[in-house]
């Protein structure tokens, strides 16, 4: 590659809290416009913000999980700009003294660990939403009208800013996946990109491979799904390389990703960049973060994906790739681990989870949290395989039936008569019939073509609808054919 991309991501994560960051209004998604508001979050004259303690705890949790330093002294700041969805004319954010600084997240690319630096994590409030409508029925004389919904105004956000350590769209996706997993493990964000709980802006530049200075960067906004992270970055990198290859210069600007047309477009140039006139928020006292609070939060952190992955490898002897996949989502890892704790053989459970379970969930477009199947059902079914009640092959259909109907494996096997036939007396006749029917194959087998045993087993299985115990069939056939 002649060129190398340099990427830094700014991720906005909506925090999981019952109430807003500076008032007691609920944060529920999708309510009627302006029903989740109060004088504070709509910026009435004379109101004052009061910090939601949960927000601070969530930010510290996230900082600790991403190996950041937690500031002992932190301040809020006002970011000033005019926009109808910003009721106070400023956003309460953090600027000079963010709550967390200098951390990192490890991602795995091409089997190797790569460390992506976290510059800072800060707390801030979300803005509301403008709704534009053009209708003859609205307003005097009809026409185009804009409405403001302030339900989202004051919903707590974390902004997580990475160092420009990312070198490809694939790394960016991995970083986002890992960050999302961590946030979800911590329970600080639901990670739902479609609903906007996780939003991403990217700073991108390209340079000749091997060069150490950065090229001119652009900021791409409005990247709202994992697919778009990759697509938008790929597009922007290609665009910048094209500009350079054609003798041009990349212009420092903010660009907007258009997911429908699959392009980035200039939104505003450097000259039009806002001067946000940040200054310390005088309505909120500086935060003095005591070590005890940080220690307390540190002690309450759950096991995080990296540690869990290593433990799955050492404790359950899983292949690293299996462990990586299983820990990618906390509920998935929890599901897996519950099955193992209930007595399932770790690798066998892993195969079922990563194979059949994921296949069915994907088919139904369901997340693991919506999985109708309980780990105990899988373990019960595995016992039926182990004790020879059903064959491994039959088990797949039992598994799917369990998933669809929530019945116990035993009752499915009973109802459908799927019990494995291990009784040699019962199988002998079938074996004899098969041997009698296929003279040619019998002769070829006896002439030394031993792999034909599979053909005979297959025939028996076909007749018994897969219920025959393959081992017993094998033995009977060998006896008969010798």
């Amino acid at each position: 590659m002649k060129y190398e991309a340099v990427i830094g991501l700014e991720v906005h994560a909506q925090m999981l809290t019952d109430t807003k960051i500076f008032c007691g209004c609920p944060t529920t998604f999708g309510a009627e416009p302006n029903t989740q508001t109060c004088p504070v979050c709509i910026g009435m004259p004379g109101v004052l913000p009061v910090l939601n303690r949960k927000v601070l705890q969530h930010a510290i949790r996230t900082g600790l999980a991403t190996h950041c330093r937690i500031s002992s002294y932190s301040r809020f700041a006002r970011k000033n700009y005019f926009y109808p969805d910003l009721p106070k004319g400023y956003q309460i954010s953090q600027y000079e003294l963010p709550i967390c600084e200098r951390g990192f997240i490890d991602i795995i690319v091409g089997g190797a660990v790569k460390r992506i630096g976290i510059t800072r994590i800060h707390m801030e409030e979300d803005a509301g939403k403008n709704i534009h409508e053009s209708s003859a029925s609205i307003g005097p004389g009809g026409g185009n009208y804009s409405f403001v919904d302030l339900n989202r105004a004051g919903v707590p956000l974390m902004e997580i800013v990475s160092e420009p350590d990312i070198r490809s769209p694939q790394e960016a996706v991995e970083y986002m996946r890992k960050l999302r997993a961590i946030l979800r493990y911590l329970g600080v964000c639901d990670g739902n990109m479609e609903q906007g709980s996780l939003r991403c802006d990217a700073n991108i530049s390209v340079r000749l491979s091997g060069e150490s200075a950065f090229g001119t960067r652009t900021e791409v906004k409005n990247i709202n799904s994992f697919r778009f992270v990759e697509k938008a970055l790929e597009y922007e990198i290609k665009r910048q390389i094209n500009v350079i290859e054609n003798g041009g210069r990349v212009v420092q600007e903010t660009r907007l990703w258009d997911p429908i047309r699959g392009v980035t477009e200039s939104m505003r140039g450097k000259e039009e960049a806002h001067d946000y006139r940040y200054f310390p928020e005088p309505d909120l006292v500086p935060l003095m973060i005591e070590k005890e609070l940080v220690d307390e939060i540190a002690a309450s952190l759950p096991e995080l994906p990296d540690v869990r992955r290593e433990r799955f490898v050492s404790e359950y002897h899983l292949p690293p790739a299996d462990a990586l996949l299983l820990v990618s989502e906390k509920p998935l890892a929890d599901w897996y681990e519950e099955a193992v704790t209930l007595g399932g053989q770790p690798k066998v459970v892993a195969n079922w989870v990563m194979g059949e379970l994921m296949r069915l969930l994907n088919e139904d477009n369901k997340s693991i949290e919506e999985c109708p199947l309980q780990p105990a059902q899988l373990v019960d079914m595995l016992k039926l395989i182990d004790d020879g009640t059903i064959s491994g092959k039959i088990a797949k259909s039992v598994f799917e039936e369990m998933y669809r109907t929530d019945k116990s494996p035993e009752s499915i096997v009973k109802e459908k008569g799927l019990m494995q036939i291990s009784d040699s007396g019962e199988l002998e006749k079938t074996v004899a019939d098969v041997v009698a029917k296929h003279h040619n194959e019998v002769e070829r087998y006896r002439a030394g073509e031993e792999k034909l045993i599979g053909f005979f087993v297959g025939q028996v299985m076909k007749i018994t609808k897969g219920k025959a115990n393959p081992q017993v069939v094998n033995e009977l056939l060998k006896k008969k054919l010798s």
Partner: protein
Amino acid sequence: MELCRLSIGEALHLLRTKEIAVPELVNDVFQRIDAVDDRVKAYVSLTREKAQKEAVAAQKDIGSDADGRLLLGIPLAVKDNLCTKGILTTCSSKMLSRFVPPYESTVTSKLIGHGYILTGKTNMDEFAMGSSTENSGFYATRNPWNLARIPGGSSGGSAAAVAADECLAALGSDTGGSIRQPAAFCGVVGMKPTYGRVSRYGLIAFASSLDQIGTLTKNVRDTAILMNIISGHDNRDSTSAPQPVPDFTGSLDKGVKGLKIGIPKEYFVKGMDSEIESAVYAAIKHMENLGVIPVEVSLPHTEYAIAAYYILATSEASSNLARYDGVKYGFRTEGRDLMDMYLRTRSEGFGTEVKRRIMLGTYALSSGYYEAYYKKAQQVRTLIKQDFDAVFEKIDLLMTPTTPTAAFAIAEKTADPLQMYLSDIFTISVNLAGLPAISVPCGFTSDGLPIGMQCIGRHFDEETILRVAHTYEQSTDWHRRKPAL
């Protein structure tokens, strides 16, 4: 008897002994308003009917032992930058000329809890920006002592209303002297508590780190009575302090013997009005006779206070006033597009001084200027605080003139903002340092204009300055004089 002339303390006594009734008291106050307010113009709006109804209800509860309400039936005025639920709150601005808050400020909630009766909302410099009440978006308030003079500002309406007996006392707000300076000009007692002593929730912000709600009263005891009610931590205001609130009336009579009073030499400057200077020196001498020990001290960074103040206050104001954008409430002028609507709304809705300060503050916070202005001003603010910390190791309180001159004439300084700003030269440092201070009447000029003396205390030590001010007041009778209206 003219009931409107009563202080809170006197009225409470007469109500309790049933010598007077609440409706009588309230009616007398409104009669007084009717008689003088077309000349004084202290009020922006009156709540007469509501007050009269409440007066009848209050009278029924008077004298019942179970009733712990400390202001039952007392008619008070409130500056029009304190939000009162369901009652017009304009900040004396066209921008909010029809704004009716859906919520009650913490201080007025407390007054309501104690049974006060609101007479009306008082005039002020628009968004509390000014020192003469001439910047009101509606009309200028006049000084009851001389109608050709300004009452001071920005709480000029509250000070004039108290001085003219158009209420028993009033609430105001003080960002750089906005209670103390008009109190001095109008011959009443004006108290700015320690920053954080009184919740700012519901006070329409001018400069958040400097704004403090306080009182304008006819005597120091009334100040203590109101302070007992309005003080204390509020969950809705993170900057309100979790300090215990003493009984401010309890220590008023404990005497002043042996208190060390600092006289800052920077507050007795060349060019200041000689009548003011001699009145304040006389007051200090008077206090010395009562047993205090005057000590000359220095607050060396005083001369930078006004410059630092006008950078910090305007910076905060530029941001605090951004919410008046015509989108959600208040004044709006339609425009061709969003930007045009913003520009027209804010150009037409704000007055000249407000726009001047928004521009100053926006400039001071701009990238490239922030370090030179805002940051530097914060550093100066720290030095000014340290000046006070240093002197308070040696003394118990400071005594200074409240203002360098007595009330000036209407329109005398409107053309020269800098001259106007200088009228707050003795009060501004106190806000930068967040200290409590009180202005009490200490004399009159030969023209018959009141003179005020300022006592500045340690953080959260309102008790000492109230005690000293009360002792001074009780041994003089400046506060008993009334303007001839």
